[in-house]
């Protein structure tokens, strides 16, 4: 046959599965950006986007969770409407809320590393509540740290004022997302190894 099969370097089975999952969770995080609920604590509605970051870290582990969120950022940067409010483009990454977006790969990596106790993915996702909550709390701190620093840099504000403008109203809702994430991970319907 005309095809020289020896020169084709196949992506291995495990990697192909991880790529597929990373892409699907990136797409899910983008689709979650469109799902918002009224917030009982604040006028800012709660979107599920950050839940995507939590789940990517918990289910895919540090490395592939980070890759998944990097795919999310790059896909949004080149035009998929996956950022808050269905926006896209490099502009969103350099705008006032860009810091939050940049944090996602880091946060997913940190969550994955804590949940799985290192960069290697465990066969079963640990379901202990303290570990899950701890990991997501660290992830949330990473997200808000990047977000507040980003906003202060982009808008030329002090950190305190950036916190008031960009973080204070949103933090309480993160507790709901953590609770939801725990419910998701412990659900019988989710059979991710």
């Amino acid at each position, binding site marked *: 046959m005309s095809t020289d099969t020896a020169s084709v*370097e*196949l*992506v291995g*089975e495990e990697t*192909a*599965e991880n*790529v*597929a*999952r*990373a*892409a*699907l*969770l990136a*797409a*899910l995080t*983008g*689709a*979650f950006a*469109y*799902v918002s*609920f009224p*917030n009982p604590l604040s006028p800012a509605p*709660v979107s*599920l986007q950050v*839940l995507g970051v939590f789940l990517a870290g918990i289910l895919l582990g540090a490395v592939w969770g980070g*890759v998944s969120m*990097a*795919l999310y950022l790059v*896909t949004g940067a*080149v*035009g*998929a409407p*996956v950022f808050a*409010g269905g*926006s*896209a*483009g*490099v*502009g*969103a990454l*350099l*705008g*006032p*809320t860009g810091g939050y977006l940049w944090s996602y790969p880091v946060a997913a990596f940190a969550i994955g590393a804590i949940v799985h106790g290192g960069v290697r993915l465990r066969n079963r996702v640990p379901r202990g509540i303290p570990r899950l909550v701890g990991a997501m709390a660290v992830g949330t701190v990473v997200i808000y740290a990047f977000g507040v620093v980003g*906003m202060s840099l*982009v*808008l*030329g*504000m*002090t950190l305190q004022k950036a916190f*008031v*403008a*960009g973080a204070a109203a949103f933090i309480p809702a993160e507790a*709901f997302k953590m609770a*939801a994430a725990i419910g*998701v991970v412990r*659900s019988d*319907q*989710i*059979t991710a190894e």
Partner: protein
Amino acid sequence: MTLSYRPGDSLAHRLDPRTKLAFQVAFAVAAFAHTTPKGLLALSGVAGVVLASSDVSAREALVEYRFVFPFLLAGPLLSAAALGPPWIRWQAGFDSLLASYRVVLVLFVSAAYLRTTPVRDSRAAIQHLVPGKAGQLLGTGVGFVFRFLPVLQADLRRIRDASSARLGDQRGLIDRMKLVSISGLSRALSRADRFALALRARCFSWNPTLPPLSFSRADVPVIVGSVGLLLWAII
């Protein structure tokens, strides 16, 4: 979303995507380096030319990024406010206003890219720019995310419709979030399994034929301009 790729024959449509990516970066660096009235005035002119040569109106670009405007306004207002005398600090407010304005300019240029660059071009640019397996992973991965985004959005819409048809929206917030995400995630994971199988059956490889890209004469002035912006930013 208002701004997505639309076929056309503007100057920006004819540029190589790598040129456009480089220009966006150079423009942003220049805007962050020269956040002064004079610098931003000059860059406003550049942004105007960019919009004109890519068939995007300023209005469309602003609508696309409407959700950032509360932050762009809050920045200068909060910066100007002080908790004690003299109560209003004009200089801090003005600095933050300039910073907000520079973001608007960056958003204009970004909007021009979105309108004039199809996904396959962006994918190709990533695979050509990022070397080795990382580039292959990012490029194909981006294509896959684009492919599945509408599929998963439809999944979530169906889940929410089915839930509210059975009065699911009367439940508490956490329950509702859980319901949507459990169903959404379990569908996404089974799609991922089937997708991985199809990828392997189709010889998913690390060294495929890359999508073709080539620079043309139209790219030259834009590349020169990008280098110029970078030099101006550094000096």
